[in-house]
């Protein structure tokens, strides 16, 4: 069943666990109890319809009123499989207790943008999803008005039923669904006033939640198809290296091994798309009967590697960025006023440099894909954030026309940007084509971590000039990134200061990089908001009041015309967090830091409370205020915000990928430190600004600012400012 377990179901579904067939396990601690326990949440109990009536590509309604809504975009944990269908259901006035959600097939003509990326699924899907639901409702009303022989205007709908108040007649959607399916699709529809929403803004449980907790096969790696073989790849040990020769004799002789060969995902003369970022185009593929057999054979391969370009090291990356910022002139991205003269006149100058290393995505489900490629057809199943682009790549690489390629999108064990780059799908397809059999390509964790599309390494130098009264006169940001500078030139504090300048240094690398949850923002927010904290202190001002004074300038008399934010909404979240966190109140042993940031069209402000316990930082509480416009699924939204906060704290504190001679030094979780249960905040409190504006991004915006809230709190706790991520490397933190 693919129905979420709704809380309204709780009161009447009470199934004795013992009566339901008994518990299997003797040690199950429930069975130790004398009294039988009752289920609060169970699989939905409605019957499947005998006939589905398709109203449009997004939904079909059974004769018994059960509604299936297609979720157009891939699910990576951002919960769009619940929230996108909610939007359709709202305008349809469906009964959510009788809704089934299915993952839509790849069909961009019908579903348009089927991408998980940029926190844009809800924002860009909002209008179409609403209209889709509203059109179907209109068709049901038309069919009902003909059936009841009453004017459509006299009909109303609620929870899957159509009411004619004058005659007290009620029709279930199921009763008119068949007739409605042949009604002409209306061109124009009236959408609800958001004030009348009954589903949007409530909390609906994850539609896959009940399947997840039972371990049902939902993920790409769970794919099991008839005749399927297992494939793995071996890639060069370092960026800058390639295969010289392959001796596969030992591997081929091992049990269960079918074939070993070289593949190249970038054939000559082929034009890559943006999504074709790939560490190593040429790989060794091993195909066999079972995962373990192939894993063992992979270790038995004897491959000679040869250098083809520079072998880069992290210490050189740091030096390269330092040199760029020290000596070379970068690209000026924005200049307001005359920063140089303003700095000369300033009473006080603060200048600080911030750095962060490469990061791996480390989705818990490693890269994998199923492919069955025959002479003229390719069928793929797997976890990819950009199936529509993978389709185009496959057409070019396989030489099979798009219409003969199908890609089924599975639920993904995390994305964070890694699965925007679907080379593993292409690799699976090439391997299947070569062995003429269906294969599932599986990356080991080591393959996954050492063949990344990493978050770039960054360095940025901030410089602020204050006058004698502590007012900000001049501001300069000079950024370097391998390969791209992280600065958004037109974002805050652009627009708040007369003399302002941004300079970028983009530095070459042969290490593959890509989008990592909240690209660029995931670093620059921490740097910017840490720096503003230090500037506020130098100005002798409260850090929230200092930021608010800058917004006042941006509201009343903004500098420049291309400021990429709404200063009132930005200031708004800071004002609310000031109030909700009880800012200014001192508690013994608790040290507080504040941060605010805008990205993915959403405004976030956070106050973080830290205590030092046995010389180690313990985050006691995070108070987070979010302005993302209308909140579609409240509990799901809170979960996203909590996750971004934990993710941001973890990576700022602990995580790094370092390179020595082109080789990543971390290849598994024993060396790459991810945040764990005991290191997460004790509590996270989330508040939304209720302004009725169309919804904006949620999967990413809570992550970028939290690193600075943490750094600013840790400064209060330790007296040390943190400039270099991961913070844990700074020994003074460890007491």
């Amino acid at each position, binding site marked *: 069943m693919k129905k979420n377990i709704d809380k309204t179901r709780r009161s009447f579904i009470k199934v004795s666990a013992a009566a339901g067939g008994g518990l299997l396990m003797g040690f199950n601690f429930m069975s130790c109890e004398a009294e039988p326990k009752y289920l609060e949440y169970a699989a939905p109990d409605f019957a499947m319809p005998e006939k589905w009536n398709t109203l449009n590509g997004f939904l079909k309604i059974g004769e018994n009123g059960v509604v299936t809504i297609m979720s157009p975009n891939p699910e990576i944990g951002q919960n769009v499989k619940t929230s996108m269908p909610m939007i359709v259901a709202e305008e349809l006035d469906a009964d959510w207790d009788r809704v089934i959600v299915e993952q839509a097939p790849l069909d961009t003509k019908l579903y348009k943008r089927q991408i998980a990326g940029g926190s844009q699924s809800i924002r860009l899907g909002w209008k179409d999803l609403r209209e889709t639901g509203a059109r179907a409702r209109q068709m049901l009303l038309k069919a009902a008005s003909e059936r009841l022989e009453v004017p459509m205007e006299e009909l109303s709908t609620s929870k899957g039923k159509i009411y004619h108040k004058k005659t007290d007649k009620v029709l279930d959607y199921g009763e008119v669904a068949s007739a409605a399916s042949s009604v002409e699709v209306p061109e124009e529809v009236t959408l609800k006033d958001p004030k009348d929403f009954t589903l949007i803004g409530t909390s609906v449980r994850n539609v896959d*939640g009940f399947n997840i907790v039972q371990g049902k096969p939902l993920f790409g790696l769970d794919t099991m198809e008839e005749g399927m073989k297992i494939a793995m790849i071996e890639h060069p040990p370092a960026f800058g290296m390639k295969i010289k020769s392959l001796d596969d004799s030992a591997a081929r002789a091992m049990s269960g091994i079918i074939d070993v060969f070289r593949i190249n995902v970038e054939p000559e003369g082929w034009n890559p798309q943006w999504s074709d970022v790939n560490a190593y185009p040429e790989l060794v593929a091993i195909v066999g009967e079972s995962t373990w057999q192939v894993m063992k054979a992979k270790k038995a391969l004897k491959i000679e590697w040869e250098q083809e370009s520079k072998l880069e090291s992290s210490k050189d990356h740091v030096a390269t960025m330092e040199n760029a910022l020290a000596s070379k002139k970068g690209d000026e991205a924005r200049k307001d006023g005359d920063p140089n003269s303003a700095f000369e006149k300033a009473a006080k100058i603060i200048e600080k440099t911030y750095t962060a290393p490469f990061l791996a995505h480390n*989705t818990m489900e490693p890269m994998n894909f199923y492919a069955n490629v025959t002479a003229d057809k390719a069928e793929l199943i797997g976890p990819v954030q950009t199936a529509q682009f993978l389709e185009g790549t496959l057409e070019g690489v396989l030489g099979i026309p798009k219409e003969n390629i199908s890609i089924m999108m599975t639920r993904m064990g995390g994305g964070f940007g890694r699965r925007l780059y679907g080379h593993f799908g292409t690799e699976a397809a090439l391997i299947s084509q070569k062995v003429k059999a269906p294969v599932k390509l599986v990356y080991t964790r080591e393959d996954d971590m050492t063949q990344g599309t990493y978050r770039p390494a960054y360095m940025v130098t901030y410089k602020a000039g204050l006058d004698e009264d502590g007012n900000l006169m001049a501001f300069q940001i000079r950024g370097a990134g391998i390969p791209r500078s992280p600065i958004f030139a037109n974002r805050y504090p652009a627009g708040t200061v007369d003399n302002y300048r941004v300079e970028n240094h983009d530095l070459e690398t042969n290490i593959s990089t890509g989008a990592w949850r909240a690209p660029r923002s995931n670093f620059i927010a921490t740097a910017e908001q840490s720096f503003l904290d230090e500037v506020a202190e130098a100005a002798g001002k409260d850090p929230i009041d200092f930021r608010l004074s800058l917004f006042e300038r941006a509201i009343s008399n903004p500098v420049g015309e291309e400021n990429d934010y709404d200063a009132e909404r930005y200031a708004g979240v800071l004002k609310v967090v000031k109030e909700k966190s009880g800012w200014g109140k001192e508690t013994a042993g608790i040290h507080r830091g504040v941060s605010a940031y805008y990205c993915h069209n959403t405004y976030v402000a956070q106050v973080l409370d830290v205590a030092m316990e046995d010389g180690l930082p313990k985050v006691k509480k995070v108070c987070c205020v979010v302005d993302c416009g209308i909140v579609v699924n409240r509990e799901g939204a809170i*979960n996203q915000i909590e996750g971004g906060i934990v993710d941001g704290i973890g990576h700022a504190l602990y995580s790094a990928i370092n390179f020595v001679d082109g080789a990543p030094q971390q290849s598994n*979780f024993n060396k790459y430190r991810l945040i764990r249960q005991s290191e997460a905040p004790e509590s996270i409190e989330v508040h939304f600004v209720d302004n009725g504006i169309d919804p904006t991004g949620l999967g990413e915006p809570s992550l970028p600012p939290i690193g600075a809230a943490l750094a600013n709190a840790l400064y209060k706790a330790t007296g040390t400012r943190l400039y270099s991520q991961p913070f844990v490397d700074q020994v003074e933190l460890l007491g």
Partner: protein
Amino acid sequence: MAKYKLNVNGAEHQVDVDSDTPLLWVLRDSLKLVGTKYGCGIAQCGACTIHLDGKAARSCSVPIDAAKEKKITTIEGLSEDGSHPVQQAWIEHDVPQCGYCQAGQIMSASAFLSENKNPTDQQILDAMHGNICRCGTYTRIKAAIKTAAKNA
């Protein structure tokens, strides 16, 4: 290759695999019990957690030889219908985001609660230290374990 008899989720199974095969891959490839997840292969992430005679174990690092005399329970066998108090608490708190690590989290939590029915917060944190959630659902996991302890 060698033949092994295994007791998985209360039923006897016979498999024919290489003798060094980790239990994880026996469960996933041979028995098609894919609820137990592969995350790291070196017992660092907890995604592959199962119960061996009721105790939590990382199946990626248990060779089949070490499991043949034991009662093996996977997420599929924790309950028949999702009724285990830990599974119910996970729904109550709407814990999962991507969901990939959650079977392992639930297996760790259920083994822990079977031995400690009234845990302190610190005991929960310590017991769950070996299970990584990349989405960061830790606060919900902690809350769900407290609810499960209450409802068990």
